[in-house]
């Protein structure tokens, strides 16, 4: 079968001028709350995670205000402990883990593979309600009862010493875990069984591969968290001395079980971000991604090796030195595929034709900040250095560089990139770029000083601290104020775009990818006609020749 040269193809049959978009299929509240349309479910999730993001963000604001002075009195130590706990629980489980997969994954996975919906649409809406109600329940329990264990629930503090609604919070998180598992089951089955004709595995966009790898991790890791939380509940409610050393239990056992999930969880939080960036960079550089196959293999390797490095959270816990060597080695190894991806993203700019719209700005910011975060991870993987730096602000800075500098930047990249497709409206590019710049500056001002703090010896989870650390804390808090502003800005200009924004065409970015071959916003069944695929993704120029850009449907 010969490839038809692109230039001579007929145009795609144009969708009729008044395509009924998914937004117009029913305007009642019930049509939204009980929908099975993956696109509407994505929007429900988006509203949910935004609410939780601002709850977690509010907690962060209180933390940074408290830490402006060494003996801060904004909050009592008791309240401070509850605040950093709720910040961690809400940000990790109710914002970051769901963020990209449940919003952009739900919306675009079926579109990108040419399907009408996901494999199990009813499971999809059920998973939203499990997430939203479970998360709401957890937040209410924590706020009303004061959980102060940290999001890590270390024993025996959480089982025997902490007062507060630990059991309720653990049950709430346990319930929300089912949502993760359901989403994973749905996505894996969808990718396996619903790819449109011609969409072979190695023609899948990297975002789909990212959703696939993430789902694999969600499905296998989350149940172990469920088991760990259940055991905390069992010890508190039934008195089972599982982690009580005076009655035959082992506190370190909890750490192993907890981190066996929680380390893969961080890959749940970063793989989708990598998928988004891999979509945005080719579009705004107008060229194919560099090293597509290596990018795929790298993501799968990260998912796989990510299951065997959990012990690097426990280098000073008292585990055997041989365990330390083993986990250290594997932690260095898991960084190799990540490094490859950074090189490939950079190389994808070579001989491109680049513009810096907001999505690209965020995506390039991701590359830089993820690189810094990842390199500091190597320092933490080195046992002698980690002995000094673990449980200090160095670790806090490290994971915020990856989670916030990385994942949240990528979330905003995807949000802006796909905004016209989701809403049918265009956002104000100047406002978006300003917000992106503010975010980049605010982020670095907030978290870079924390590397210095950690190296200087400032431990984590301190409500008050030795006075010599104040300078860096003030800098960090100032940065946080800028960052907060940068996060609030999109609410305004994106909200404005919904009401007064320009109308978006089907493909305002002239991007490749099946999602751009249908109307903005898409109709309920995604495509007027089931698409058939004949080429790989990122077909921005034919024949590996950037001087020959292909003609893209607009």
């Amino acid at each position, binding site marked *: 079968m010969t490839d038809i040269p692109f230039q001579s193809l007929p145009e795609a049959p144009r969708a009729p001028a008044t395509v009924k978009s998914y937004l117009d299929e029913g305007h009642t509240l019930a049509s939204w709350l009980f929908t099975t349309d993956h696109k509407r479910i994505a929007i429900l999730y988006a509203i949910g995670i935004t609410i939780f993001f601002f709850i977690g963000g509010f907690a962060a604001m209180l933390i940074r205000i408290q830490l402006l002075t060494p003996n801060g009195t904004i909050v009592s130590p008791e309240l401070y402990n509850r605040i950093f706990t709720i910040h961690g629980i809400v940000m990790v489980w109710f914002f970051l883990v769901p963020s990209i997969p449940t919003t952009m994954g739900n919306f675009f996975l079926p579109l990108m593979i040419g399907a009408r919906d996901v494999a199990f649409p009813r499971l999809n809406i059920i998973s939203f309600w499990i997430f939203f109600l479970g998360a709401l329940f957890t937040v209410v329990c924590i706020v009303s009862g004061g959980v102060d264990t940290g999001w890590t629930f270390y024993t025996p*503090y959480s089982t025997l010493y902490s007062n507060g609604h630990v059991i309720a919070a653990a049950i709430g998180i346990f319930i929300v875990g089912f949502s993760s598992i359901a989403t994973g089951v749905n996505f894996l089955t969808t990718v396996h069984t619903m790819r449109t004709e011609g969409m072979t595995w190695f023609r899948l966009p990297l975002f789909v591969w990212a959703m696939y790898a993430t789902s694999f991790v969600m499905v296998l890791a989350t149940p172990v968290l469920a088991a760990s939380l259940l055991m905390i509940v069992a010890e508190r409610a039934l008195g089972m001395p599982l982690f009580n050393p005076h009655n035959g239990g082992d506190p370190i056992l909890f750490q192993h079980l907890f981190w066996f999930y929680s380390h893969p969880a961080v890959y749940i939080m970063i793989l989708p971000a990598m998928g988004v960036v891999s979509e945005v960079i080719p579009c705004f550089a107008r060229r194919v991604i560099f090293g597509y196959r290596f990018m795929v293999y790298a993501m799968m390797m990260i998912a796989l090796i990510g299951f065997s490095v959990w012990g690097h959270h426990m280098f000073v816990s008292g585990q055997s030195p041989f365990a330390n060597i083993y986990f250290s080695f594997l932690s260095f190894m898991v960084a190799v595929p990540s490094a490859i991806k950074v090189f490939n993203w950079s190389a994808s700019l070579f001989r491109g034709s680049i513009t810096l719209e907001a999505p690209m700005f965020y995506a390039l910011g991701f590359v830089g900040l993820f690189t810094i975060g990842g390199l500091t991870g190597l320092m933490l993987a080195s046992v002698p250095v980690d002995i000094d730096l673990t449980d200090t602000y160095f670790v806090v800075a490290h994971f915020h560089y990856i989670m916030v500098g990385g994942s949240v930047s990528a979330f905003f990249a995807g949000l802006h990139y796909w905004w016209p497709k989701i809403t049918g409206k265009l956002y104000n590019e100047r406002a978006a770029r300003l917000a992106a710049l503010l975010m980049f500056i605010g982020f670095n001002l907030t978290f870079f000083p924390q590397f210095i703090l950690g190296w200087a010896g400032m431990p984590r989870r*301190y409500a008050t601290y030795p*006075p010599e650390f104040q300078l860096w804390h003030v800098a960090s808090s100032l940065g946080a104020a800028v960052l907060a502003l940068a996060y609030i800005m999109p609410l305004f200009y994106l909200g404005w775009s919904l009401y007064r924004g320009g109308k978006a065409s089907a493909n305002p970015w002239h991007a490749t990818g099946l999602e751009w071959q249908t109307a903005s916003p898409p109709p309920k069944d995604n495509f007027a006609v089931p698409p058939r695929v004949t080429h790989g993704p990122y077909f921005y120029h034919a024949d590996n020749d950037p001087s020959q850009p292909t003609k893209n449907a607009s």
Partner: protein
Amino acid sequence: MAGGTAFLPVEAAKQAGAVDVLFYGEVGISVLVSLIVACLVVGFVTRYRRGSPASRRKLPQAFSHEVEIIWTVGTFFAFVAIFWWAATLNLIHLRPPDHTLDIRVVAKQWMWKIEQPNGVREIDAMHLPVDTPVRLIMTSQDVIHSFYVSAFRAKQDVVPGRVETLWFTPDRIGTYQLLCAEYCGLGHSLMRGEITVMSKADYARWCARMKAAAQVKTARNGEAP
């Protein structure tokens, strides 16, 4: 109360030097790599911005394959090398020397209880002789705490029901901050202590004085009705 530093931690133990070299070495590598990535990104964005006259010739397929393999293998070996450095340092420091000054530490919410080998007790304080290997034998009475002295680059979680050891050789006279580094509840931020490193002679005198005072106290208590 001993103060730390705002920027670079002081090196007050024999192992601190090697740890610092590793750390600064890794920082150096990180800065280098970050700069390379930043320059590549900024450079490419500038050179290949839309409408620029830079050449956009065809991308050779074989070239891209070779480049991929080179930087994959290169990264792998670079990371193995850094791991090797770190692991060697880790293994060197694993076993304490045969003769150490053994000090018992019991952590509890929210204080450090220290017992010197001659029986002298301290709370939230530890006096040590310089240039002498010290081995701490530690346990917790309640939750997990963590014994952290940044100046020594030493940290060890203190776990209830287990005995953990931590060893170091202080090599600089002075006072250094002890902080708890594992969240342990309400008083976690205040669970601090002061490590005083003195000359061997001073330490011996201090021990003798403390022991004598303790004996007087015991004798007086014994006489109490």
